[in-house]
């Protein structure tokens, strides 16, 4: 029997408690144990950014952290962005309006990277936006519409 450890953490404000093996990655905990599949598993070694979540408010890659390390911490995923089912977060609205996605696989990671970025940089330049999203890969858009979506979102958040 492999040892399991008790994990108790907040995800989008809700307490989640489970017994898990220490080798369970945080992203797999979020998807399989908490049932929140908005966080995507891409490269699984910290390159693509698809699994980005907020860990105590700061964007991190949840595929290169263990769930047991999140014990006692607060996680925010893409499901935690919108205030209700009928209304989008401004960053989501920006992506909607500027066509900042095509297949959408990378989008949750982009959104979670950008929320704290826009909160601390309400009026970013294009260069700052491109720097901020340098750790997120998108295979569809060519990034141009993502940059425009961030500019749109920055206006909406004012």
């Amino acid at each position, binding site marked *: 029997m492999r040892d399991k450890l008790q994990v108790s953490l907040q995800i989008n404000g809700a307490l989640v408690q489970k017994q898990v*093996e220490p*080798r369970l990655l945080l992203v797999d905990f979020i998807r399989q144990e908490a049932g929140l599949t908005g966080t995507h598993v891409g490269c699984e070694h910290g390159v693509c950014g698809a699994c980005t979540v907020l860990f105590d408010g700061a964007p991190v*890659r949840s595929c290169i*952290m263990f769930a047991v390390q999140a014990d006692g911490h607060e996680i925010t995923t893409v499901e935690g962005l919108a205030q209700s089912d009928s209304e989008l977060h401004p960053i989501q609205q920006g992506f909607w309006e500027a066509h900042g996605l095509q297949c959408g696989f990378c989008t949750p990671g982009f959104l979670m990277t950008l929320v704290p970025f826009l909160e601390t940089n309400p009026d970013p330049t294009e260069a700052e936006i491109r720097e901020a999203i340098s*750790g997120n890969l998108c295979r569809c858009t060519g990034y141009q519409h993502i940059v425009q979506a961030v500019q749109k979102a920055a206006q909406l958040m004012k």
Partner: protein
Amino acid sequence: MKPAPFHFVAPDSLEAALEALQQHGGEAKVLAGGQSLIPAMNFRVMQPAVLVDLNRIKALQFIRPTDEGGLRIGGMTRHSAVEHAIVVADRAPLLHETMPHIAHPQIRNRGTIGGSLAHADPAAELPVIAVALGARLKLERASGERWVEAQDFFQFLFTTDLQPDEVLTEIEIPPFPDDAGWAFIEFARRKGDYALAGVATWLRLDPEGRIREARLVFLNVGDIPVNATHAAEILQGERPDASLFKTAAKTAAREIEPAGSVHASPDYQRHLARVLADRSLELAWQRAASRQNHA
């Protein structure tokens, strides 16, 4: 699940962590930021039996100015904390300039300065900066502590003087001289990727404008950070100009031993190192001269 099974301990004191390492010896691996270790575990390249997680030890996360004008940085201090600390920008401008080159914002929120030094990736920035700045590293084990100079710490690819029962707890950076200018330049195929080559440079000017002392340390062109001492000798005592910098850069390019990779031949890495060295000397000189004028 991606990684192989392991036993996990996450002590909240350094003493408890050192005890765990003493108890498990070579079976245990220290988990700092995990931004290199966990990918390696996901690939099962690394399969430690025990992980000793240092993330709950708040006492290892600090940036403190020293009375002499330098800095002491705790081993578990996140890259993002170093990147945004004003005291680092003031006292270690070369380190400050380098931080944004380390991977991506998400990685810098998690990765730690001690973890990067202990991992000793030849393509990483911080080992090069530690050697360039003459940093000292504090290594602690249950039975005591010792200090090691950064230049003696790195031994081979991913291999350091750190023993299995030791933790790198602190980095001491000496004061950066008032008469020195600095530059960090690297070339990577994409922003945030490991660089094909890079160099950390500083030079000091005497009151007559001659070079008092210089140092160039390269990344990813050898098994460990490569300190181009012959290039530094060529610069010492000379009046800086473009042709001197070109000569020194050429000498430096002969001192390095690039291994080459699928992304760059050794010749191309040598070319890059020469061009980057030349540019870094020019920039370091401008900054030193500017500081001299403002003094």
